[in-house]
């Protein structure tokens, strides 16, 4: 469960103080599929990064499974990110010098989960995302959709409870967008909590709960 209690984020810029997120207050239950839509610069990515332990809020608290993450020391917060949270960014984030399999294995550096050997799990994940033929391909040899699927597979490598995706379909064509969102749905069907932020309102049909972010203010639509 993710609980945001009146979190705000202020930045200093040339014109003075800029309020990127204004007292966002909400709870996401385990297994929810949440979509936050909003224009570019509305503060939705900042919100996502605060929930994921990447950016410290100026005010408010974030709790994951009742643990207040921004009061934790760096080691513990890093551990939470490694064990409980998977990130998918708009950019692929794949290291160009590593193969698809090696990229998927990266999170094991920071957390080794119990169960299957890491390599077996990486191969299984890539196969389940129809990338069985691309295990040893480099990112430059993959299509845009395949790159995105490898990035999602990587975010799931440590079997996190929460998947946070920032504009995951931003640079994809409509068919690939559909394919990626279907993938998120299937991951959600396995009990994972998913939070997607996007500027695209067409994605609304995939989510259980929809929020709109406008000039830093978050409003739940459905």
């Amino acid at each position: 469960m993710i609980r945001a209690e009146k979190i705000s984020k202020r930045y200093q810029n040339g014109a003075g103080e800029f309020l990127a997120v204004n007292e966002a207050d909400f709870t996401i239950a385990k297994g929810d599929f949440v979509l936050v839509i909003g224009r570019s610069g509305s503060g939705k990515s900042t919100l996502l990064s605060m929930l994921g332990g990447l950016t410290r809020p100026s005010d408010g608290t974030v709790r994951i499974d009742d643990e207040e993450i921004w009061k934790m020391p760096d080691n513990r917060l890093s551990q939470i990110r490694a064990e409980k949270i998977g990130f998918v960014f708009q950019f692929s984030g794949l290291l160009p010098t590593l193969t698809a399999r090696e990229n998927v294995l990266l999170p094991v550096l920071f957390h080794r989960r119990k169960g299957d050997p890491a390599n077996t799990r990486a191969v299984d994940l890539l196969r389940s995302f129809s990338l069985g033929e691309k295990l040893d391909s480099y990112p430059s040899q993959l299509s845009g959709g395949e790159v995105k699927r490898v990035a999602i597979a990587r975010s799931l490598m440590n079997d996190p409870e929460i998947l946070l995706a920032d504009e995951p379909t931003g640079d994809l064509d409509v068919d690939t967008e559909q394919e990626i969102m279907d993938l998120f749905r299937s991951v959600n069907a396995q009990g994972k909590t998913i939070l997607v932020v996007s500027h695209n309102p067409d994605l609304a049909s995939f989510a259980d709960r929809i929020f709109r972010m406008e000039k830093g203010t978050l409003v739940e639509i459905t």
Partner: protein
Amino acid sequence: MVTGTLLSTSFLVGGAQNSVQVGMDRLGADILILPQDYVIKGQSVLLTGKPTTFAFQDSVLSRVKSIPGIAVASPQLYIGTLQNQGCCATDLQLIGIDPENDFTIQSWLESELGRPLGKDECIVGFGIIGPVGTILKFYGHEYTVAGRLDPSGMGMDASIFIRMEDAYTMSEESGWKAVSPVGIREGQISAVLVRVEPGADKEAVAQKIRETVPSAYPFTVSHVATKVNSQLSLATEVLTAVTAAVTLVSIPFIALISTMVANERRRELALLRAMGATRLFIFSAVFSESLLLAALGGLAGIGISGLLLSLFEPLITGTLQVPFLWPSLWTIAGDAAVAIFLAVGIGGAASLYPAYRSSTMDPYEAIRRSEL
């Protein structure tokens, strides 16, 4: 570049000092006495083997022997050969020794040849071509090569040792056998090598010689080392200054490069943070990468400078007019290790701040900025 200049400096200085040490040990003398007017030429014979002929105008040996504190005094006669001798393209240094009192090659003769040097036999320095048994002809006088000395890096390598008796004969015969006479009379000597008695103060004995024999210029082994060091001092100072300048410049330069590399890769580093990397992990990754690069750079510098030094060593030492003998492998390895250690230290110091910046950056900010 730091490792290269550092290694070059220590290599040249170490090589020269090693050469002086080996050469002086081989010479076996505590004090070398030369005629006042031929000090520079005499030292050249000793250090670089530059051929020359000179001698004392008066008898000095008996007066030197009478000075308290002297255990053994052995005369030597220096005769420069004419050019284009049978063995060699350049002129050489003939050194006449007194087999009864010599201690320069006597121990070598005993251990390697097993007998005293015979009539018209010679022992050649390491740098002179020709196997044992070769006949060499100087001033119309023939000598048979009886053995070859080990390398010393000093003038001895380009010298030929003969009996003083044969040298006088050669000088006498040169009047009608050679195109140019030697011009040395029987009984004349060029230098006296002195061993002091155990416990005697070498400098005090040298001073006593100076007072007793005004035409003689005595100098000790440490004096030779000082002279070599002074000849090297300009080159050493330049290399040291270059090393210091390169070191000083390289720290901010490497820091800048490390910062640029870290900036270039901040999205990757932020991604690792998102996957669960701790600040310590990021710091260690950036820092250890810099150390590794510095070590590799240091190795490359050592390789390049080693190659250049081995290719141009004769040219460099010839230009500087200093003796040179390759330092031992252990000495070179030690110098190389120090140079690499320094390079790694510089790399580490220069990357501390970039590594710290990388570890404390806001991951989301790093991602956002790299997308701009």
